[in-house]
């Protein structure tokens, strides 16, 4: 009995505290990431980065005299769960803006709900350049588009790796991987390269032996492999490709930016290249990156897992910058101020939105894995970018 009373009063206290905090003393931002499921290895670091940013901002006095509050739900990599969470953020939590996710399909489960309530949704890591046209006016990216990173990959492959022929393996189950593969092919063939075989798989496949056998039957062997894959599958694919004795360069997009790649593929990860938002390296990174890494490590006892941590972090600062310039937390004013963001420095590069474009102009980091270590191979702005 005593225990029950204690328990009930504890709940009551928590309830009262949470009621107290929703009394308008804070500015609420809705944060949606997948802490479980196939997206967790990108979204987890993003969420941590965002929380770190909020903590820093609050410690420095908050925004517009109020504390920043991140209201977050786990999307569980599931569209239905995400839809419900977004509705909850609009109706119950009454947030002034939303952000999150690293995958277009996930974004599309939430952003339209925000747009309907006339609230902006900023995706920190979904790179499809087609997204904004699907949710006009209310959907912004704080990262580059896939056409940009694919073009960077193609140009680097052609110019620096001197690859003339490529094998393409594309995950047909994700908008992200489909587009990335398509943009790469477009730019690579435009440069004069040839795609000798284009093969496919489905998200979550575990056995790639049939595709690998097909690849090995190619005569002559292609100069490189472009494997358009999500974070959950790429480690397994690289491992199985290498286990089959194929040693050539493997290229991919920011889906590769997960510690799992090197952990799973081990030595096989050598000679893998990928495009991402920035190199999270204590010594090789920019001053912003080094400062961020130190703060992240102090908070979470681990260095940032990948660039997505930086994207989450930058996204919160992006929103706060807009609120400060608008001098208001009104959703409409936030949106207008966001569009005029200019040269806002960030861990993943500075952000500027050209008039009418919700996709920022940002550079692409090309990471190369050699001798069991990642290093920044190049920081590029592609010469020519395929249309979305």
């Amino acid at each position: 009995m005593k225990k029950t009373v204690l328990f009930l009063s504890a709940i009551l206290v928590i309830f009262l505290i949470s009621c107290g905090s929703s009394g308008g003393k804070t500015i609420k931002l809705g944060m949606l990431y997948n802490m479980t499921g196939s997206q967790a290895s990108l979204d987890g670091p993003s969420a941590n980065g965002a929380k770190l940013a909020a903590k820093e901002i609050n410690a420095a006095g908050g925004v517009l005299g109020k504390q920043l509050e991140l209201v977050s739900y786990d999307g569980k990599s599931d569209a239905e769960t995400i839809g419900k969470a977004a509705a909850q953020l609009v109706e119950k939590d009454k947030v002034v803006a939303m952000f999150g996710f690293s995958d277009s399909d996930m974004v599309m489960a939430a952003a339209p709900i925000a747009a309907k309530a006339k609230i902006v949704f900023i995706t920190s890591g979904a790179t499809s350049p087609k997204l904004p046209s699907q949710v006009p006016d209310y959907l912004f990216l704080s990262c580059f588009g896939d056409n940009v990173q694919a073009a960077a990959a193609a140009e680097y492959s052609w110019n620096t790796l001197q690859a003339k022929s490529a094998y393409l393996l594309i995950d047909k189950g994700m908008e992200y991987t489909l587009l990335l593969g398509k943009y790469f092919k477009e730019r690579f063939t435009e440069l004069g390269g040839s795609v000798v075989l284009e093969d496919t798989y489905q998200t979550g496949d575990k056995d790639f032996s049939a595709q690998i056998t097909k690849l090995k039957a190619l005569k002559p062997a292609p100069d490189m492999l472009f494997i358009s894959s999500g974070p959950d599958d790429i480690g397994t694919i690289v491992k199985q490709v290498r286990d089959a004795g194929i040693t050539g360069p493997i290229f991919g997009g920011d889906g590769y930016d997960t510690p799992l790649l090197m952990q799973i593929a081990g030595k096989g990860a050598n000679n893998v290249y990928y495009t991402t938002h920035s190199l999270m390296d204590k010594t090789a990174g920019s001053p912003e990156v080094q400062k961020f890494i130190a703060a992240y490590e102090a908070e979470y006892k681990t260095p940032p897992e990948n660039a997505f941590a930086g994207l989450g972090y930058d996204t919160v600062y992006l929103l706060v910058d807009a609120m400060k310039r608008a001098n208001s937390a009104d959703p409409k004013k936030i949106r207008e101020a966001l569009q005029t963001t200019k040269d806002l420095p960030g861990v993943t590069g500075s952000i500027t939105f050209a008039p009418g474009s919700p996709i920022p102009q940002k550079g692409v980091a090309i990471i190369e894995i050699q001798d069991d270590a990642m290093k920044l191979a190049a920081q590029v702005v592609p010469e020519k970018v395929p249309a979305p």
Partner: protein
Amino acid sequence: MSAGEYLLQQILNAVSIGSLYALMAIGLSMVFGILRLINFAHGDLIMVGSYTTLLLLLGGTPFVWASLAGIAASTVAGLLMERFAYRPIRGAPDVAMLLTSFAVTIFLENLAIILFKATSRAFPVPALLNTVVSFGNLQIASLNIISILFTIILLFLLTLFVTNTETGISMRAASQDLVAARLMGINVNRVIAAAFAIGSFMAGVVGILWSAKVGKVDPLMGFSPVLKAFVASVIGGLGSIPSAVLGGYILGALEILLQGLLPANIAPFRDALVFLILILLLLFRPNGILGSAEKEKI
């Protein structure tokens, strides 16, 4: 690579993945044969074994010992599952048992998420398991050879067991007619426990091979294998060991051949095609390829 070699290589791929499906399907099918229970939690036994192995590996235990301990953990988990989840509701309607198996799955997966976090973790494999062995122009991953070899050995031992030991014969008898088996005085509890133990043991073996192939583990890793095992056992005919094995290899062959032969823009519909073939098969042979007409039960 000549066309013949290419085909041979793909057949090897099919046999290798089919072996894993077969081992999984055996466990699912044996339990179904006796209890009419589709134990969806069977896949989670893979997870239990793989995580046990992983933790021991990280603690510095040599691979062989860690694997054996993982297989033992799967086996014990299977026995506990039977004792505490399924025995209390034995004889309940099939749907109730199926729902219980979902509950067990949810419980185990969430437990794993709490204990080990939801994210994937790399599964370190000794070099022996990821080298390539060449036979002339053919190159075979050592892991495939080991998978096939283990499957042959296990199938051989299992065959000996179910045809030569009293418990083995009792197991087949019980899956034919549980009441008649009880009338003989067969110890049904023991037979069911034996079925779970053998199935879980095999799931443990698959767990190691599967994790070595995929290179990582995660709390939901059992889902895909149990689904494959289910399809395999339905193809072969739920409830008997030979049909489970046949179904496993047919599924492996279907997947590899469809993936290997279909044009790239159709290949993604491979799984849909497999299900279509399954549905067609069930229309003509409702009890699977080897299945006979459903027998009467009281």
